[in-house]
Every structure is written in structure tokens, then in C-alpha cells.
């Protein structure tokens, strides 16, 4: 598991309040039942804080859509941290 994925897993567990939650690069909004539009904002807030990055409005909306998953999230964070 990459460092970023491991760190993200911590954020997901914290936001969804589920210490047993395991995420993979394939995980997307449909694989976590609580991942609705409200929780999405909470997730964004927590990720921004954890990694010191800022998402654009378009990215915030896109990350929840079908076809996007944790892999695309990691890619996006990596671009921002680079």
C-alpha cells in the first residue's frame, strides 16, 4: 500500500467513523454507503487539511461521480503536492 493510500485510509476511517474501513484504489463513492453529498464535503475538508492541498470546485464535484475512484483522488493529490 502506498503512503498516500495509507494516509487516505486514515482520513476515510476518521470521516466515516469506521475503524474497520479498508479502501483500495478501486474504492469509489458507490462502494461506501455513507458517502453522500454531505459526507463528500466533510471528506474534502478533511483531505484538504490532512495534505495541505486545495481542490477546485470542479474537482470537488467530479471526485464523487461515477468513473472516479480513490486512484483518481490519489493522482490529483500527487499533482497538487508535486
Amino acid at each position: 500500500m502506498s503512503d498516500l493510500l495509507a494516509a487516505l485510509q486514515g482520513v476515510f476511517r476518521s470521516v466515516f467513523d469506521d475503524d474497520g474501513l479498508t479502501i483500495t484504489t478501486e474504492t469509489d463513492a458507490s462502494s461506501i454507503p455513507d458517502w453522500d453529498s454531505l459526507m463528500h464535503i466533510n471528506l474534502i475538508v478533511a483531505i484538504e487539511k490532512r495534505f495541505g492541498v486545495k481542490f477546485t470546485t470542479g474537482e470537488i464535484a467530479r471526485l464523487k461521480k461515477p468513473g472516479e475512484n480513490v486512484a483518481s483522488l490519489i493522482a490529483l493529490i500527487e499533482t497538487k503536492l508535486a
Partner: protein
Amino acid sequence: MSQTTAPEILDYIEADARARAARYAGFLKALSAAPADGAALWARRAVSRDLDYSALRKLRKHALHGRSAEGPRIAVLGGPTTIQLVEMLELFLAHEGLLGPVHQCEYGLFRQELLVPGSELDRFRPDIVVIATGWRDLMHTPGPDVSAADARDAAARELADWMALWSQARDRWGAWVIQNVFDAPPHPPLGHFARRHASGSERHVHRVNEAMADAAPPHVLLHDIPALIRESGEAAWYDPRFFVEAKMPCAPECLVTYAHSLASLIRAIRGRSRKVLVLDLDNTVWGGTVGDVGPGGLVVGQGSGEGEAYLALQQYAMALSERGVVLAVCSKNDEEKAREPFRARDDLALKLDRIAAFCANWDDKATNLRRIAAQLEVGLDALVFVDDNPAERALVRRFVPEVAVPDMPEDPALYVQAIARHRWFETAALTSEDMVRARYYAENARRNELAASATDLASFLASLQMVARVQPICEANLERVAQLTGKSNQWNLTTRRRSVAEIRQIAADPAWHTFALALADKLGDSGLIAVIMLEQRVDELHIDTWLMSCRVLQRGVEELALNLMVRKAQTLGCRRLVGRYLRTARNGMVADLFPRLGFRALGEAEGETSWYLPVADDRPRPVHIEEMQA
């Protein structure tokens, strides 16, 4: 409380914010392992505006366990979405023990909810309506090309609309209203010129706010959103991504500030604002240790930046005192040494005669804070304790958890801000009596000293030369009556909260008889100190409401009040007085009032007892208070 409490919990609770952050994960883990009730208690205590949005959310599952029966019914009506705001608000209300049912309306539907009879809000019957609006909710914003007169008309129409909503809340439910002061839209297209241009949205917002401030009736509290924006910084507050994407009123992190601030007003409505500022001396109100360097060696006053910083704290304390916050001192010192700087120096802003309780000795501060609360006749939960020493803060947090203890920064220049940011002293109204309250307490402290020196109570009471002014509730005393009715918790037999409108109705109802008592003595005027509302039911006179200020305990006011009630019952031809005691978490001090005054038991039910007193042959109880019908 502590025998089964995990050390991770206690270590977290007693630490300052910086140390707390590192201990948060361990604290949460210990909470999850604790029984639900205990975890709820600690989670509520941990709620703080020092936590960020994500960290606070994690407390919800523990802190919201079990709502308080004392919590008001709160409706949050937003222009923008209020879901996350309410999540935060619930936490801060739980922290205050004031979390009751909370209702919120669908996005953007607040006008309909308020105006349409039978709406979900109407059925909810709120005690407090929070109108959580912003500039986007204004309806009559003029364009930049209208005349100055038309712009003023637009502001008047705007005000009329909002006032209509406020009236609905009062007329339908007798509810308090918390109305957001409007923020001006950021980035005015006219730039600085917007400030002088006759029309346009910026001037409109300012006009509306001014008009609201002038027109707001006593049941409406204004919530100063622009002040919160200044505090957070405009760029942080208006993170526009969260409005366009999620219709949130501000950035999530700023919701912490927003909800905390709202809760401080709700606390004020419920009479839970703190009343006393307790100050340590050495390195808190002046730099240096007076016992070591003497009054002349202390760093305070003009001439050095640090000295001015300490002076600023003293000035802040005095300014709070001017508006009714009581000041006290709690210092580890020899008493004479601690008092010396106040006498020897004329450049201190803090004056000895404004300090209602002066506690300087070598006992631990938890014990001394209990003494101060007892001397001032307030609960420990009325105290805020300011001390530069982290060890003292930790001790107080552990042993007298009711006392609020702010983290204090190392730099005295930041002291005022460190205290003020907690909004502990908010008020729902400011009466002329608030302005002189600090003096009452100082006088009361002297009365207690006098009582300690008098050989018997009767001669002491007689020496006070007390005069009671007795009035029915009327327009002249209505605001103060409503204030006392809204926030008296301890000496209050039934704790029935009533709005100004409801009290006015009672005062006008021929079946009701009311008294408002004010008290003065040779040491000063205590102002309005008791409210009584009696309802005649055939040949019985029922004591619906009887509450008193704790400032005047043990002075014979109870007996005087009872004499008044008996006399009223006799005049009306009633057979007996009937009284009830409704138990709350805070009114234990009057649990045995009725039997103490000679009432006989009538009945007992869950959480209440009822009593009666035949009045036909009742003789006035002796009191040392001269009665003046006003």
C-alpha cells in the same frame, strides 16, 4: 466521576489546546471504550471552539447521547443550507447542557415556514427561532442607479419584511428570535466609493442593519455575523467553493465559530452566561511577582509594551465590570501584599473597590474558587478563571470542572483576545441594573462582612434599613421582569420561561395578580429582585411563578413576599394559597421552601410537590423591610 475514568480522558480534559491536540486520538479511543453515559459527559466537556470542523464532528456520536430536558426547542431557519451548521450547533448546545429538539427547514424555505400556519415549523412550536440569513436573503436591494430617497425606501421595506417574520415568531409561539446581522457582499463593484454612494447593495446592507438595531423588540437578539467574519478573516469565511458547490453559508471551518457564537446567545437567553471574572494577580494582571519585587517593581502601565499589555487586560476587566460582569481575585499571595499594588500605585486600571471577592492566600485555587462562588452566592458554573499558570489551570479543570478556564497564551498582549473569544459574557438585554450590578456584588460582600460581625441576625437586618418597592408587573418593569423570568435558575419554584408578550398578557389578565419587588438598603440599591405571578382559580390563589435573585437571600424577602401574597389572597376572598415546586437540575435551594414557610403538603408527583396555606387567620410574618407601594 473519576474512579473509572480513563487517564487518557482526564489528561485530555485538563490540558491546554496545544497539548490536547496530540492527545486527541487517545481521548477518542478511550471515549469509545467507556460506557455511553460517561462518554457523553466527557465528549460534551471536550466540545470547544479550539477544535476544527473534522475533529468536532467526531464528538457527535458520543456527545449527543441523551438530550437535556432543559434544552429549549430551537428552529434554525436558513437562507443557505443549515445542515452542517446545526451539526455544530448541537455540539455546542450539548456542551452547555442545553441540547433539546432542533428543527431546520428545507433550503431557502424559511419565509414559508414562518408565515404559513400549520407548517412543520408551526407544529414544532419553537422556543427560539434562529434566522440564519446572509446578504443573499435580502429582498429589496436597490441597483446603483436609484435615487437616495428610493434607496431609503428600499431599506424601510426590507426592515418591514423582517419585522413581520419576527412578529410571527412572537405571536404564534412566544418565541425568542436570533436574527443574523447582514454581511455586506464581498468585493463591492464600486470599491471604496460604495461607502459614499447613496444606493447600491453595500449601503443597503448597512442601512438595513442600522434600522434593525433601532427597531428590534426585546424578544429579538441580533447575531453579529460581520464581527465573526472580521474575526475569521473575509478570505477564510467566504470560501466560495462551499457556497457554489454545497450552498453552505461559509467555509466549514468557520461554521465552528458560527455555531459557537449562536450557542453563546442561546446560553444568554437561558441565563447561563457566566457572571464572574476571577483573575489571578502575578503575571496575569501585572508582570512579575509582587511578593518578590514589590508594587514598584511590577511591569504594568504606560512605558513598556508589556506593561501596556497587562494594563489592557485590566481595562478589559473594568469594561466588563461596567456592564455587569462581577470581578473577583484569586491569588497565591499574602493578602496584604496582594492588596498593596492597588493602594500604592495610581496607574492601575483595575480598582480594589470593583473587586467583589478578593481571595489571596496559600490554599489551593480549587478551594478558593469554591469560596468565591459561595461568597458571591453564585454557582461555580458562573465563574471564569483566568490564570497565566498552566498548572493552576489544570488543577482547576480537574477539581472544579464547572469553572470555565481559558488557555492563556505566553504573551500578555494576547490575553484579552484569549478570554473574549469564548463569548462567555453574552447578554440578551442590558438594563440599567446590569450597569451597576458589579457594585451590588461588592456591596453584598460588605453586607456579608457586616453580618459576620453582627451578634444576631435580626439586629443586622434592622441595621441594613431595607426598603422594598412593590409594584404590579407593568411597562416600567416589564423588560427586567422578562429578563429575570428568562434566566433565574436557582431560586425559582417553577422555572416557567415566558416571553415579553406572554408576561404582558398575564399582567393585563384580571384573573392574574402580579408583583415585581425591588429592594434597596443603606449600602445600595439592588433593583428588581423578585417576580411573582398569581392566578386566581375560584377560591384559591395559585402561585404560578415565584422567583428571586440570589443576591438577596437570607434578608427576609421570602417572608415579605409571602405576606404580600397572603394579603392579596385575603383581599380577593380566597380560602388558600396553593404553591408548587417543580424540580429542575438547578433549583434545589427552594425544594423545602414551602414547608419552611409553613405550607402544608397537598400532593406529590414525579419531579414536583404541591402545597397550600390557609389564609383566613394568617398573620404577617415579621420582617425588617419597610414596604413602599410604588
